[in-house]
């Protein structure tokens, strides 16, 4: 009877160890934090647009169709790396892409876009990072999928890789 009881701590210990081991080997980024804005409305904001002489009003621009929102800056190296996939979203998926330009210089952004191509339908300017805070952004690049009702359905932190591209492509088709 006593021996049987002695097994219990060992079993619990092994269970905990295997849970830790499982979390260690699965493909995950422990510093990635789930967005609190999931399934919530797009934050309200108004911003000046790059290349266009008018304002961007979130209340008018979201809620009509699916939109991919991409926070980027010309000074951000991972943004440069993922740019090819942003272009592919535009070409292959035909989704409208809004690129929010985070704390950037006008001349640098325009040069960056002419060098790499411009897949964005609109580029609202976030000069002081206030729009990013409203979206809960903590490290660019970040990419959101907003459905046709103007509700945030997905957020990805970090550059889009081949694997992420496939995942988001499927989501774009699934999300209404």
């Amino acid at each position, binding site marked *: 009877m006593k021996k049987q009881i002695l097994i219990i701590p060992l079993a619990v210990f092994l269970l905990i160890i295997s849970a830790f081991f499982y979390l260690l080997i699965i493909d995950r980024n422990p*510093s990635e*934090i*789930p*967005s*609190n*804005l999931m399934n919530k409305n797009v*934050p309200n904001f108004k911003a000046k647009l790059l290349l266009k002489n008018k304002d961007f009003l979130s209340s008018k621009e979201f809620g009509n169709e699916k939109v991919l929102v991409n926070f980027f800056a010309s000074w951000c190296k991972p943004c440069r790396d993922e740019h090819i996939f942003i272009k592919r979203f535009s070409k292959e998926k035909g989704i409208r892409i809004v690129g929010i330009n985070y*704390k950037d210089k006008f001349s640098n952004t325009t040069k960056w876009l002419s060098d790499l191509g411009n897949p964005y339908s609109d580029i609202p300017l976030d000069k*002081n*990072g*206030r729009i990013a*805070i*409203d*979206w*809960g952004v*903590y*490290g660019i690049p970040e990419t959101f999928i907003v459905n046709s009702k103007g509700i945030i359905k997905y957020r990805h932190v970090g550059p889009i890789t081949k694997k992420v591209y496939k995942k988001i492509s499927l989501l774009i088709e699934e999300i209404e």
Partner: protein
Amino acid sequence: MKIKAFIILFICLTQFFSTSSIGVEPDEVLKNKKQELRARDISKNIRCMVCQNQSIDESNSPLAKDLRILIRNKIKEGNKDEEIYKFLTYRYGDFILLKPPFKFSTYALWLLPFIFLMIGIFVIYSHNKKSKKI
């Protein structure tokens, strides 16, 4: 031997009393001291989402600076502390609070240590009782 112990104690104490790093820059500081103190208090409870193990009061990351300024602006506009916390957690989730709130999803986190303590006391107690009998 005594000297050695004294040195170790001294080193421990210097660590204990050392001031933590401060990320607040002079241009951010509010003129109103009372408001500035409130801002510092809130900042100490807000996690820097970039560094993740520092508060925005200590961090020198740009996002931490933005949030410190935002908190100060909100205080100047007359927002209450709770309103500022609500504003931040709506956008960044409970993770932005260095101290997790006590609510349904965190009951296990807060209560398990006490439950384990109770189990421990019970085990020791019953063990003692048994060994006394023998």
